[in-house]
């Protein structure tokens, strides 16, 4: 089986603010990690490989520092990593990202399954998986919390408003996964040592045979108009005193507010 896992590097902390003057993003800390749901996707791929044999490829689009995330994926057990890295790819929204990833994944054909996290925790869109499926003309199932596979078809449990829907799809397909699906392994020391010898290939826009109108900012229909901080003005009323006194005051307030 050849499984392709898409990963995104995201900031380690979501503790960001918007500068009130410049409207630029102020990030606390510069550490980056693999998007947590993507680690679930990789874990699922590694488990399927343990069952069926084959290879797991990881692919990501981003700046050169994404190599670090790909190194971790290799240390966790992926066989090969691909980084789509080019200034021309910068400023991409989900549509352009999905197109670019699709062009990269086509070069990895044949493949049986493409796994992604349900969304990236920074931008929180969850759009790249389905958009990628469309660009590759493959069926999709998203937000999967349990996956079974017999090598030819998959059965996927996905949470929906009515409970859990159980889908059955032929392979190849695109699947995006929930955190519930598994607990990702940590890279082992020996995995880290061995990963140094695994291939990490960097592809530029030229390597990918892309239509220049569909990549980067140019290929992105959406535009960010502005960033701003959510309005959160604190107007808490602290009820003082011993617990009993404070509790009585609270009950009185809640009655006044008619929420009791």
């Amino acid at each position, binding site marked *: 089986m050849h499984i392709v896992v898409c990963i995104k590097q995201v900031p380690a902390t979501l503790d960001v603010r918007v500068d009130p003057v410049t409207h630029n993003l102020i990030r606390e800390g510069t550490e980056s*990690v693999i998007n947590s749901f993507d680690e679930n996707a990789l874990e699922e791929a590694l488990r399927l490989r343990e069952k069926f044999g084959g290879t797991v490829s990881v692919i990501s689009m981003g700046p050169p520092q994404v190599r*670090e995330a790909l*190194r*971790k994926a290799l*240390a966790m057990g992926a066989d090969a990593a691909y980084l789509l890295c080019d200034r021309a790819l910068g400023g991409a929204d989900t549509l352009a990202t999905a197109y670019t990833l699709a062009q990269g994944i086509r070069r990895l054909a044949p493949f049986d399954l493409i796994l992604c996290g349900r969304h990236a925790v920074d931008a929180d869109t969850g759009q790249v998986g389905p958009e990628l499926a469309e660009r590759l003309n493959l069926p999709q199932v998203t937000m999967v919390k349990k996956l079974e596979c017999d090598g030819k078809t998959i059965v996927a449990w996905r949470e929906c408003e009515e409970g859990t829907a159980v889908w059955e799809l032929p392979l190849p397909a695109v699947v995006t996964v929930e955190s519930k699906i598994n607990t990702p*392994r*940590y*890279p*082992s*020391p*020996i*995995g*880290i*040592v061995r990963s*140094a010898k695994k291939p990490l290939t960097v592809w530029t826009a030229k390597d990918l045979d892309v239509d220049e109108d569909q990549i980067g900012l140019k290929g992105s229909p959406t535009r960010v108009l502005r960033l701003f901080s959510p309005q959160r003005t604190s107007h808490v009323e602290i009820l003082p005193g011993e617990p009993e006194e404070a509790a009585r005051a609270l009950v009185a307030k809640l009655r006044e507010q008619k929420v009791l």
Partner: protein
Amino acid sequence: MDFRLSEELELWRKTVREFTEKEVAPYDAEMDRANDLPWDIVRKMSESGFFGVPFPEEYGGAGMGSLAAVITIEELARGSASVALTLDAHWLATDPIFMFGTEEQKKKYLPDLVSGKKLAAFALTEPVAGSDAAGIMSTAVRDGDYWILNGTKAFITNGGAAETYVIAVKTDKTKGARGISTFIVEKGTPGFSIGKKEDKMGCRGSVTTELILDNCRVPAENMLGKEGEGFKVAMVALDFGRVCVGAMGVGCATAAMEAAGRYANQRQAFGGPLAKLQAVQFKIADMAMGIEAARLLTYRAAWLRDAGQRYTTEAAMAKVFGAEVAMSTCKDAIQIFGGYGYTRDYPVERYLRDAKLLEIGEGASEVLRMVIGMNTLKELA
């Protein structure tokens, strides 16, 4: 001189940090209350290959060397001194088997110890012989293909939890240090039992017990190293162990400084955060300097070991300094927290109790100062 860690070591540090933040630190307070070894965490560490970091691939390790081992201990100690201590004590017994074991002994014991499937413990200290290691009283007497071991070992980390013990006893009572030999003793050997479990002040998530040898029959092939070589085995093991304790000091102090720093930035007093007060800034500055110096001592000692050079003095320096930095940092951290720091609602009092162990175990600061002093004076002669 290049102070950057390799890409490999950076990735491993990040991995241990993530593991510690998710799997270890949240349970440290609970293990302190329970006074028991967190087997779940030990199992997860084993699954993730922690136990094999410094050992070669042929025995199931990763062959990453001493610096990687030290980083493992440091990062674990940032979340739990107890868990770091458990691994340190395990290595203290596993490393001499690797260094002094026969090929048969290595094949028999190392795979399970390197994978962490079984824990190991190292036993030198006795109720009346701690720093004065040559003064141990336990004995072994030859009886055909066996040795008969008798005596009591005290303050043995991983006692009871370990399956494999490296135990130092006197095979020749007429000699001091040169009369000592070490044996590998398996749990369940007739005549070998676990004594009292200590109710320790700190590091309560690691177990410490007595070991009782009562006519314990150990096959002669279980002697580790040559007869009379036991003191050397112990000292070689302790050199590495001391670097690891230095790393525990760095980790423990880092945790205390981080807690104090967060609190100082948040807590308001005199119309601003505590962090604006110079008295607090000075304390944090001393912490940061101490930690950085302790880390460099520790890393350099590990580097010397990996380079195959003598490092007994540097190991002792790393240990004494790291332990004392941990103590002073935890003490000051409590001071910054004020009354809250003195309660069990905040972790800094626990860190202080944990840190105190580092000044005592694996060579008390006083005896190690003797080592450093003597070795330095020898060079100055």
